[in-house]
């Protein structure tokens, strides 16, 4: 067995972080093997790839120590972010970049570029295309093509499908399987069901980067299924397990752990009242049928302490109505809805292709872009003062990148900004903050800086700030994008609990399963029009 890549007694520590990662990890990958590395977020999986390839310490300075290391003679690396993998603006220039680095003569460049594109299933006509015109899936394939130009023996792939929609995910895996058949592949992934049949070996690391499991996929899977769930990995069948299990977490209850550690075990909790969703085309359940709060701990009191709003408006009208509604970006009309309505307590999933107008819809509802036509919210016409747009009261928009919404340098201040009101004392404010932190399973550490939270926690914090501003309609732009299973379920459950409390949720998403399991209706957008409203019956 020839070893392609290996390391002995690896230890590594990021500057400023207290913990030592890997703590003496020893690992060897033979030539030709397809190895998958899994583990919880923060376990250093990406870091391990960078160490094995040599990017650490060549490109990034991180203190590390090891007994021995064997790096591959030739290697390539595919990263997860389609937008920062490239330095040039055009396909041919990007591919040429690799060839220039390798000092390939100019006349040999074009044939090699065409060949690489063909190997990943991209058309050679794309050579002159600007990269920004490619879909995210195509971009990742382009990244793979440029890696192939390195003629690597070993290819490292760091969550290549993490930021892709289902279509892009399929594209990249097809290309990977086709192009990397005969090479050594070391792969880190969260969404493993598309790739698990192709790999030879699963290596599982824990939060500290220590080896927990290592062997053939079936064996590892059987012996460590609980770990797969605990680490939030998207293994095949994870949604079915989730739906079938009685282990839906109530949102409030035990205070969250004080560090970014694993959540306490779920065994022994009372089963949730909420059964799995069934997909039918029956008429919508009457408004006001939202499930009761669960577990006795109620979100009946909003963070501000006010009583929950009534289920339907004072005159029985739906919460939100749109008629001949148009939204504009610049001078172009990007969205037109003839007629639509949202009942209080609904969970609307907005789906459609990229560019169909989903984000525009959210921006329009929040009055962040110019609109025309009729928009009635709780009986009031929006905008209330014609030609003066402001975010309607009760509406909060949660953006895809939670950091874009943070304004303070401590959790306390972050929530206090939205919670504070003149008639509230400092103690009351502190109590409200603590309650919100607990409700969203955020660390009970009001002094912590928002940027120091994990991505999932940041996401929950941004929803918490929306709630703190006394919003009753939550607009969310892809809240589950790029997250592991555990955080996905956590945020969806948070939203479900809020809905149980009378809030209305309108969510843009690509996640089919999230729609089927949580939404009450689906709005399908196509090219700026509302193509279909589909009711999803939840018993």
């Amino acid at each position, binding site marked *: 067995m020839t070893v392609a890549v290996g390391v002995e007694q690896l230890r590594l520590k990021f500057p400023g972080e207290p913990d030592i990662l890997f703590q003496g990890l020893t690992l060897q990958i033979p030539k030709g093997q397809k190895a998958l590395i899994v583990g919880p977020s923060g376990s250093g999986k990406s870091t391990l790839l*960078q160490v094995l*390839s040599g*990017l650490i310490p*060549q*490109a*990034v300075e991180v203190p590390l120590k090891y007994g021995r290391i064997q790096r591959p003679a030739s290697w*390539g*690396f595919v*990263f997860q*972010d389609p*937008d*920062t*993998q*490239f*330095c*040039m*603006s055009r396909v*041919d*220039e990007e591919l*040429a*970049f*690799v*060839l*220039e*680095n*390798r*000092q*390939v*003569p*100019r006349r040999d*460049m074009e044939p090699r570029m065409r060949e690489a594109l063909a190997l990943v299933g991209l058309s050679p006509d794309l050579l002159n295309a600007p990269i*920004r015109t490619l879909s995210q899936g195509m971009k990742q394939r382009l990244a793979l093509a*440029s*890696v192939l130009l*390195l003629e690597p023996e070993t290819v490292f792939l760091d969550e290549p499908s993490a930021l892709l929609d289902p279509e892009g995910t399929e594209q990249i895996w097809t290309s990977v399987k086709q192009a990397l058949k005969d090479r050594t592949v070391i792969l880190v992934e969260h969404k493993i069901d598309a790739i698990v049949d192709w790999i030879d070996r699963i290596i599982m690391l824990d939060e500290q980067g220590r080896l927990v499991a290592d062997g053939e996929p079936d064996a590892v899977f059987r012996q460590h299924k609980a770990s797969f769930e605990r680490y939030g990995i998207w293994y095949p069948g994870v949604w079915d397990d989730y739906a079938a299990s009685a282990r839906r977490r109530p949102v409030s209850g035990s205070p969250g752990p004080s560090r970014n550690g694993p959540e306490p075990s779920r065994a022994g909790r009372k089963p949730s009242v909420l059964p799995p969703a069934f997909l039918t085309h029956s008429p919508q359940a009457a408004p006001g049928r939202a499930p009761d709060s669960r577990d006795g701990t109620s979100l009946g009191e909003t963070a501000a302490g006010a009583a929950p709003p009534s289920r339907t408006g004072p005159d029985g009208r739906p919460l939100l109505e749109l008629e001949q509604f148009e939204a504009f970006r610049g001078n172009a009309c990007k969205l037109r809805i003839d007629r639509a309505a949202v009942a209080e307590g609904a969970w609307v999933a907005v789906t459609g292709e990229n560019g169909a107008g989903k984000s525009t819809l959210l*921006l329009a509802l*929040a009055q*962040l872009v110019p609109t025309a036509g009729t928009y009635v919210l709780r009986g009031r016409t929006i905008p209330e003062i014609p030609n003066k747009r*402001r*975010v309607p009261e009760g509406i*909060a*928009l949660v*953006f895809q*990148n939670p*950091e*874009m*919404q*943070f*304004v303070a340098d401590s959790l306390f201040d972050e929530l206090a*900004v*939205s919670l504070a009101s003149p008639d509230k004392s400092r103690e009351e404010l502190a109590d409200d903050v603590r309650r919100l932190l607990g409700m969203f399973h955020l660390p009970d550490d009001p002094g912590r800086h928002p*940027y120091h939270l994990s991505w999932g926690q940041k996401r929950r914090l941004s929803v918490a*700030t929306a709630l703190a*501003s006394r919003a009753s309609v939550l607009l969310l732009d892809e809240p589950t994008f790029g997250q592991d299973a555990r955080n996905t379920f956590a945020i969806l459950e948070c939203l479900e609990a809020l809905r149980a409390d009378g809030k209305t949720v309108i969510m843009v998403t690509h996640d089919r399963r999230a729609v089927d399991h949580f939404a009450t209706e689906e709005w399908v957008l196509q090219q700026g029009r509302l193509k279909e409203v589909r009711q999803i019956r939840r018993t």
Partner: protein
Amino acid sequence: MPEWLTPQKNTWLHRANPALKAALLFAVMAALFVTRNLVFISVLLCVYGGLLFLSSGHSWRKLLLLSLPFVFAFLSSSLTLALFGRGEHVLWQWGIVKISEESIRSGLAIGTKSLAIGMISLVFLLTTDPVLLFYALMQQFRFPAKYAYGFLAAVRLVPVVIEEWQTRTHALKVRSIAFSKGVKGAYERLKLYSVPLFAQSIRRAQRMAVAMEAKQFRMDQPRTYYHETPCSGIDAGFAAFVLGSLLVALASSYG
């Protein structure tokens, strides 16, 4: 190339070597920078204004539109100098305003200078592809690859930064953040925008640098070039043109 830079037709200026073109035009700008001679400046203004409108391959309408900011600059700086400039032969005075022969001359000089430099800038920007410029700088002038590709890579991310700026503005509205007035408000705005924007950009730049090194990019090592930027007769011609324009301007200013 950004859309507004794309010309209607390619002229000889487009085919000139970008790095040589840059060097020559820079030399003209340098000559303009230090002079006060109105005749010298005006001749060059006419020459390069003419070059812009006749040989850059863009429509006159677009060129006029793009020239507007420079006209604006002309008006504002010449006005300031005319009203408050240094001078002895006073023509009109009222309070702090003191218009003199010298101040008018200074005002005109600086105004035409800004306009002339504006014309030269537009000639360059509207006939040059940034990617080719950097390739030419590397090939003709041994410009370090790390800066060339670094700049190209960073510029690639500019649209993302602009979009994030917009998102940030939206998010601040959603959270009902209001700013104070004046300098304090300026600081608050600066801070509330800078922190997330720089945080994202720094991370992105870091990721991109790692990705580039993963493609075997190494600073200070020889490389081949995809876009080959040769020198040609056009460059000799342009050099002659530039030299000629400077000589004519010089001669006129003495005449």
